[in-house]
């Protein structure tokens, strides 16, 4: 089995991790530095929303926003923000809440609907997109263009996910700096650390790739993948599950460390389910997740762990991918999805699957094609 015969979109993007992060970094920070001071000071609550990977980027960036800006930050589902959110959260004060809306193409109907609802209440809205004259950008007060080359290979991918996260980190740092929650020293250090953390991670990418290919060979025949992660790491878990579905359409499920013990512990054929656990020493639920990992050991499932802790912290039967330990823990979700991205990409290549069922016309009919853009938009006031 020669790995080079099974190259794939996710693997190619993972190898260019640092390159893309730099492009987005150079593009977003100057734009974010233009965000006006008064509205940043008016924001008493922050919502980050989007669909699919964009929504997950919001969940992944929650720890960053809460640590750096000290403002209550929520990452609701787009459908919940636009339709279910009680309107007591909106319009109670000028320019608040700050609503950050993410859509790479800027055309996702639901996210535009969220932007319209937020604007109706005088909330401050910032779009994160790669298309500055998209309908989303038009419906938002400010637009952060992530600056990725148009023709890049991003689907199925991780580049737009990382791009959204870098833009979110930039906004969080700007808010933290303006509201004096982080000192000028910390601000400069965090900006520098963001790049050095990614370049350190880039050095380990080829090691991840080799080991991930071995895992892919072992896991190719499994019935399903089950992902476990808490809070910010729940996004990394959910992202892994989304990649499985996008690349080879496999069965997956995901949960947090506590609820997994109450529900997914009972899944049938545990030996045929590959578990992917994200557990960082820097996480407040690190000790709880260790207990969950022991329960996984009891089930004798094939298990892969992504962690900033050393291999020795975990049962030896488990495949541990130790990632670079960041100075600021909230940067972990930026790179901790890489190991499993390789696994998903290689399993798909080994199974001969094309991403997004491109070869199956049922998935590419007109109805299927504009399922995200068309559809009724309703304004709940």
């Amino acid at each position, binding site marked *: 089995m020669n790995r080079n015969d099974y190259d794939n979109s996710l693997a190619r993007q993972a190898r260019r991790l640092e390159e893309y992060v730099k492009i987005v970094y150079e593009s977003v920070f100057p734009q974010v*530095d*233009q*965000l*006006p*001071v*008064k509205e940043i*000071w008016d924001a008493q609550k922050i919502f980050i929303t989007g669909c699919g990977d964009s929504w997950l980027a919001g969940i992944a960036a929650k720890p960053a926003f809460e640590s750096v800006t000290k403002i209550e930050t929520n990452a609701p589902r787009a459908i919940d923000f636009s339709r279910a959110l009680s309107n007591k959260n909106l319009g109670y004060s000028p320019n608040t809440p700050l609503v950050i809306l993410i859509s790479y193409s800027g055309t996702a109907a639901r996210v535009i609907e969220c932007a319209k609802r937020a604007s109706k209440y005088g909330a401050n809205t910032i779009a994160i997109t790669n298309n500055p004259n998209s309908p989303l950008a038009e419906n938002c007060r400010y637009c952060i263009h992530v600056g990725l080359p148009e023709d890049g290979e991003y689907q199925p991918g991780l580049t737009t996910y990382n791009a959204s996260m870098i833009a979110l980190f930039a906004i969080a740092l700007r808010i933290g*700096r*303006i*509201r*004096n929650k982080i*000192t*000028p*020293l910390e601000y400069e250090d965090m900006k520098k650390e963001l790049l050095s953390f990614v370049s350190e991670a880039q050095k380990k990418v080829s090691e991840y790739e080799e080991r991930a290919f071995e895992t892919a060979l072992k896991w190719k025949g499994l019935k399903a993948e089950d992902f476990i992660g808490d809070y910010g790491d729940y996004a990394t878990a959910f992202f892994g599950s989304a990649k499985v579905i996008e690349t080879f359409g496999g069965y997956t499920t995901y949960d947090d460390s506590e609820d997994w013990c109450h529900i997914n512990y009972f899944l049938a054929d545990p030996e045929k389910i590959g578990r992917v656990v994200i557990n960082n020493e820097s996480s407040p639920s690190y000790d709880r997740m260790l207990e969950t990992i022991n329960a996984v050991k009891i089930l004798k499932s094939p298990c892969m762990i992504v962690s900033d802790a050393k291999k020795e912290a975990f049962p030896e039967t488990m495949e541990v991918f130790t990632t670079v330990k960041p100075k600021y823990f909230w940067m972990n979700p930026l790179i901790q999805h890489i190991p499993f991205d390789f696994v998903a990409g290689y399993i798909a290549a080994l199974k001969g699957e094309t991403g997004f069922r491109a070869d199956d016309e049922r998935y590419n009919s007109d109805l299927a094609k504009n399922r995200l853009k068309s559809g009724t938009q309703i304004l709940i006031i």
Partner: protein
Amino acid sequence: MVFIKDFEITTGKNSLDNITASVNEAIKESGILNGIAVVETAHSTAGILMISAYGKEILDDIVKEMRRIIPARINFSHQDAPEDSAGHIKSALFGSSVSLIVKEGKLLCEGKQDVYFAEYDGPRNRTYSVCVNGEKEG
């Protein structure tokens, strides 16, 4: 004869750090007996001040008055952190360099006034320089 020495300093928030010792050090090192010593910082949100050497409490008064005159408002035209925007104004108004007379190898203001590094947007890593210009012999 011109002698320039650079210094580094890590400041705190609203800090006023007495840097007279480093000015004397530069003068001694230069060997210059009579002339002037210019103390300057190239940062746009910091400054160099000469403050009476008679009491620490004066420093608190100075910091409070500076903040009263130039409050760290959120509606400055300059779109940066309030302390940063106010810092630019303070630095411009209160000056970022002083020239001190050196007489017989010593500062004229020795014992009466001290030289302070004023941090208007800290904590930060800062640099400043002392340029001693004059003659060595009497």
